[in-house]
């Protein structure tokens, strides 16, 4: 380890064995540290709930965060909702670089940010129901979905059986991933319960899933990742499992015992690792919270962390970046922060 880093070391003890109700308590504990001040905000800027954190090939860090509540203005018989999430970019040392998408139309309730192999930055927003692709310079490159023109009170209800419609009309999407051919997979996710596939040009290909507990059905889809072979891993949060599909949505297998899989990430390389978070609910730090390290076949290699408020503890992890296998970034909703973790 680079000894110049400011390392916070916590010795894990048996005291957290009671932490997880659902997960494999027998998994080996992985030692890790949290790098203090992983991202440094200029004075006057604040992170809100960190729904997404991702790095690009240069190591720059992108954070998509819920910084406030939307402003609602009264228009012609309709209330219009504006804003409330922001995206910040930091360099590899954590120094603030710039804001992306300032005051842009689709930033309302951040859900996730991911960076594709060409360093495009994709923001997923669960209130505007949009998936927004920004080029590396920060310009809008492609859009999926459309923000509702106005918001109604009471709010929209979950989308029926969750199967959605065969198009890019999303209902609270949560995550996005790509295969090697550039096909786009959207976890449509918190309102619907489906995965939607688009080709690289944004043309709808197909979608699968609906609300349920059977194979290929979801309670909700909180996270998604695609491996080098194009298989799709979906975090089926309420059913507390990870479902694996082939590239066309044919169910292959499911892994249980890892909790809600609210965030996941698959590393690149010959021996890919799947990181999965059994995120704690925001209002409970006495259960869950740990992150699993596993093989793509479901073999558990170890786990680390627990729910809590201190460094090396997690508050409703919603995002994991694993560009580097042993240096992770995690975004937390409840603790309003990004942690940079070094695994030993």
């Amino acid at each position, binding site marked *: 380890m680079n000894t110049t880093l400011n390392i916070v070391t916590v010795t894990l003890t048996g005291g957290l064995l009671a932490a997880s109700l659902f997960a494999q308590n027998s998994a080996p504990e992985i030692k890790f540290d949290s790098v203090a001040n992983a991202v440094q905000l200029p004075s006057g800027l604040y992170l809100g709930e960190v729904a997404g954190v991702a790095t690009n090939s240069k190591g720059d860090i992108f954070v998509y965060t819920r910084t406030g509540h939307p402003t609602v203005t009264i228009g012609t*018989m309709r209330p219009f909702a504006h804003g409330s999430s922001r995206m910040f970019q930091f360099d590899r040392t954590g120094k603030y670089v710039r804001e992306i998408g300032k*005051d842009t139309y689709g930033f309302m309730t951040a859900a996730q940010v991911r960076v594709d192999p060409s360093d495009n930055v994709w923001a997923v927003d669960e209130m505007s129901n949009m998936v927004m692709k920004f080029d590396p310079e920060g310009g809008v490159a492609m859009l999926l979905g459309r923000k509702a023109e106005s918001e109604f009170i009471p709010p929209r209800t979950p989308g029926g059986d969750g199967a959605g419609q065969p*198009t890019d009309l999303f209902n609270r999407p949560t995550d996005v991933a790509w295969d090697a051919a550039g096909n786009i997979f959207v976890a449509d996710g918190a309102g619907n319960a489906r995965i939607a596939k688009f080709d690289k040009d944004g043309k709808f290909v197909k979608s699968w899933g609906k609300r349920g507990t059977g194979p290929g059905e979801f309670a909700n889809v909180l996270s998604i990742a695609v491996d080098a072979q194009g298989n799709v891993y979906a975090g089926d949060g309420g059913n507390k499992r990870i479902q694996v599909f082939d590239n066309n949505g044919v169910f292959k297998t499911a892994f249980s015992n890892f909790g809600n899989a609210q965030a996941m990430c698959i590393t690149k390389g010959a021996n890919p690792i799947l990181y999965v978070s059994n995120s704690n609910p925001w209002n409970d730090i006495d259960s869950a919270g740990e992150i699993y390290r596993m093989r793509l076949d479901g073999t558990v290699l170890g786990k680390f962390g627990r729910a809590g408020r201190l460094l090396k503890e997690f508050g409703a992890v919603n995002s994991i970046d694993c560009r580097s296998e042993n240096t992770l970034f995690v975004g937390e909703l409840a603790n309003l922060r990004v942690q940079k973790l070094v695994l030993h």
Partner: protein
Amino acid sequence: MKRILISPVALSVLALAPAFAQRRATIQNVPEIPFTTVPNFLKLPPGEYLGEAVAVATNSKGHTFVFHRSNNNRLFEFDQTGKFIKEIGSGFLGFEFAHSVRVDKDDNIWTVDEGSNMVTKFSPEGKVLMVLGRRPLAVLGVLPVAPQPPNRVAQKYEFCRPTDVGWDPQGNIFISDGYCNNRVVKYDKDGRFVAQAGSEKAGSALGEFNLPHGLQVDLQGNVWVADRTNNRYQVLDNNLKPIREITNVGVGWTVCVSGGPHQYVFFSNSNPNGNQPGTWDITGEIYKAELDGKVLGRFGRPGKNPPGFQVVHMIDCRNPNEIIVGEIESWRVQKLILKSPAGNIGAQ
């Protein structure tokens, strides 16, 4: 109570399904007009973004104005090379939900806003010169659900989600109004009411409208109306008496009449919002026609990336060979260079 909980998304799909087949244009054997799109036509300052680019227009100098639905609704001016010049109307009361921008013969800039019910005339420098309509007072609140017909009786000087504006050579003002009136209103150049066609009620007879969504006036003073939900265009005379309808070029989304002396008209059979399956196959094209209705050609198709269209909401055709289109779902403005129909590629 239950009914209130139906999601707007579901409602819009239910509403779309029966009308879907009518969206296909019935005109056949229309020559394809080759065209190219100018990459990155508009250069935004660093850190600035367009929102839904529902409104675009040029002035006599070739400046481009974009009135767009960003986080807040904004009006941007760009020079003839696409370089950003300035923002007009930042923080203005009349900007809530953009619908149209048009530039009159004196280069005044007119905005139509369906969230504030206001039509505003700005000087070329961006000063407010005239206002039509009034923004409803916030103290009156909002309804818990979208209002349903019957609409309130249309008023002379009050709009209900107006959509577009045009002028005849004498400066009379024509406004299409709108989503919750269904009429075209004529005012004189000083903003005094002259006449209306249609009413608050939707209808399908000639001279009636169902969501008049776009409007232009030609040099003869005839009024061209995109009658969207009726899937047609109507031509009215200067006193708003109907002359004819055009029913074979798909949905009446927006209309543009080019500059003179030889004027052309452009109709957009825009692909509907939401990209429902099958819509990309039968919608999205723009037609070019003579004012007598003879269709000369068509161009464009839906797509997420340029030169594809994502719900063309407005066309500027001051120069009929250099079309500028504003799209909803891509937050994009494209400049299209049209060539002669197939067989004459390269001729301008």
